[in-house]
């Protein structure tokens, strides 16, 4: 055990709840503290995004440190878009020295989607390579060159998976690859299309993968019909069933958020019945204040205290 509360929870077989915060576009740390304060006590760990959607923000690592200082356990997200293998390994060591114990390895949104589309990307290594690197660092105490490190960063290693992207038949193979590379927990893309998610979970279960990895299903409450339609049309790898969009459209403007949370709670209810699912990951984008309400209403509060 590396001191990760999230890992401890999952190892004990408790249903985990994680959430997500995006660092500010600026050096004002109060923003990240305020967001984290709303989540404290309601979730087991909080993901801190790494320049998400390729928009320049306060670094994930420093934001994670602000969370640690508040007693909130962070999951540091790392994308391979902006840093080469030298910088990534260096930052993992630094992050561990600062008390960060969970890392989520991602390839990251392509920079052409961001605010500085003219930037060069890196993509020296991919997310699987990063997972494998963290595992080698942790289990063998060696960096990518084979050098024996003076102090191994012992991270709890996470990866993302998108059951809604194509090609579907390869999605479970890719999940298996991530697990053999070293992923110990998976946080998925937002689940709206439950039948497809269940199909993916079934395949993962049949291949014995749910025994080898802790899968946390992604949840994003819909705030309005506009948001639902925008996400369905513009965000890659997000599938929102037509019936769900219709429900959002059917609600008055004042009631839309309420309906969105209701849908979210129904989804959580169904997710909890899926064999092999070990938790949920709530990504309430710029709507962190709703997380406590969701966690309470889903009967997931108080969070179990594990030492």
């Amino acid at each position, binding site marked *: 055990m590396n001191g990760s509360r999230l890992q401890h929870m999952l190892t004990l077989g408790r249903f985990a709840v994680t959430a997500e915060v995006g660092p500010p576009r600026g050096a004002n740390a109060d923003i990240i503290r305020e967001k984290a304060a709303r989540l404290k006590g309601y979730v087991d760990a909080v993901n801190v995004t790494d320049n998400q959607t390729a928009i320049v923000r306060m670094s994930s690592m420093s934001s994670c440190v602000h969370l640690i200082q508040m007693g909130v356990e962070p999951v540091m997200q790392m994308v391979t878009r902006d840093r080469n293998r030298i910088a990534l390994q260096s930052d993992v060591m630094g992050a561990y020295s600062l008390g960060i114990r969970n890392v989520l390895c991602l390839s990251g949104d392509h920079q052409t989607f961001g605010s500085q589309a003219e930037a060069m990307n890196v*993509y020296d290594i991919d997310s699987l390579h990063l997972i494998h690197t963290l595992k080698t660092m942790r289990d063998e105490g060696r960096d990518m060159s084979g050098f024996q490190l003076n102090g191994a960063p012992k991270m709890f290693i996470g990866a993302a998976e998108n059951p809604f992207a194509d*090609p579907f038949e*390869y999605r479970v193979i890719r999940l298996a690859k991530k697990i053999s590379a070293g992923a110990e927990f998976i946080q998925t893309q937002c689940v709206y299309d439950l039948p497809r998610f269940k199909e993916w979970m079934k395949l993962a279960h049949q291949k014995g993968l749910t025994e080898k990895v802790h899968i946390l299903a992604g949840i994003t409450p819909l705030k309005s019909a506009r948001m639902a339609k925008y996400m369905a049309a513009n965000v890659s790898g997000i599938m929102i069933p037509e019936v769900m969009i219709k429900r959002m459209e059917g609600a008055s403007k004042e009631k839309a958020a309420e309906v969105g949370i209701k849908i979210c709670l129904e989804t959580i209810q169904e997710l909890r019945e899926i064999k092999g699912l070990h938790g949920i990951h709530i990504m309430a984008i710029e709507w962190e204040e709703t997380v406590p309400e969701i966690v309470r209403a889903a009967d997931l509060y108080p969070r179990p205290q594990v030492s």
Partner: protein
Amino acid sequence: MIVGQQKPFAEIKASVHPYSKLLILGCGTCVKTCFAGGEDEVAILASCLRLAFRKDGQIITIDELTVERQCEDEFLKEAAPKIAQTEAVLSLACGAGVQMVASRYAGTPVLPGVNTTFIGILEKQGLFTEECSGCGNCVLGDFHAICPLSRCAKKLLNGPCGGSQNGKCEVNRETDCAWQLIIDRAKAFGQLDKLATYVPPKDWRTSYAGGPRKLVREDLVI
């Protein structure tokens, strides 16, 4: 082939504006095939520039020549007499050709008239697509002859990202997802299971990352 595209006319015109004698030098290999810098393009560009400068009241003499390949001295030496009589050369070759001209004819300013874009193919009439980034260590054998390093926007070696949808890349919905193509071919050959193997990180030393590259063929050196 090396695919290129002629620079915008206004940019070319502004770059040659300071000279009164100009040689437009075409290249008869790659850029000819992609309609950017062969003899036809040289002739059309020369006519357009003559007209444009005449309209402005500026006198400029424009000569034309196309050699088989600007990147080979054997062909480029044919340009010597014309280059001796010009103030500047507007080369419609790829970046390699432009630099070869500059190196061989060091006393003459050379301007690029083409944006060199990529190593690619003529997919269909009027459509060129990038297929190779010249990484120096070909991996096509591992990926059913589809290159993830040059055809995946994230150079992913271990499968598609979450942005692959309906066979298309999230970065450009008109671009095929390289990984969809790899998987389709693997399936067709009954080898999908092989794509379950972890592919280690790329050694970039053979690529541009290792600094400007040189290839020495001892057997050919004289």
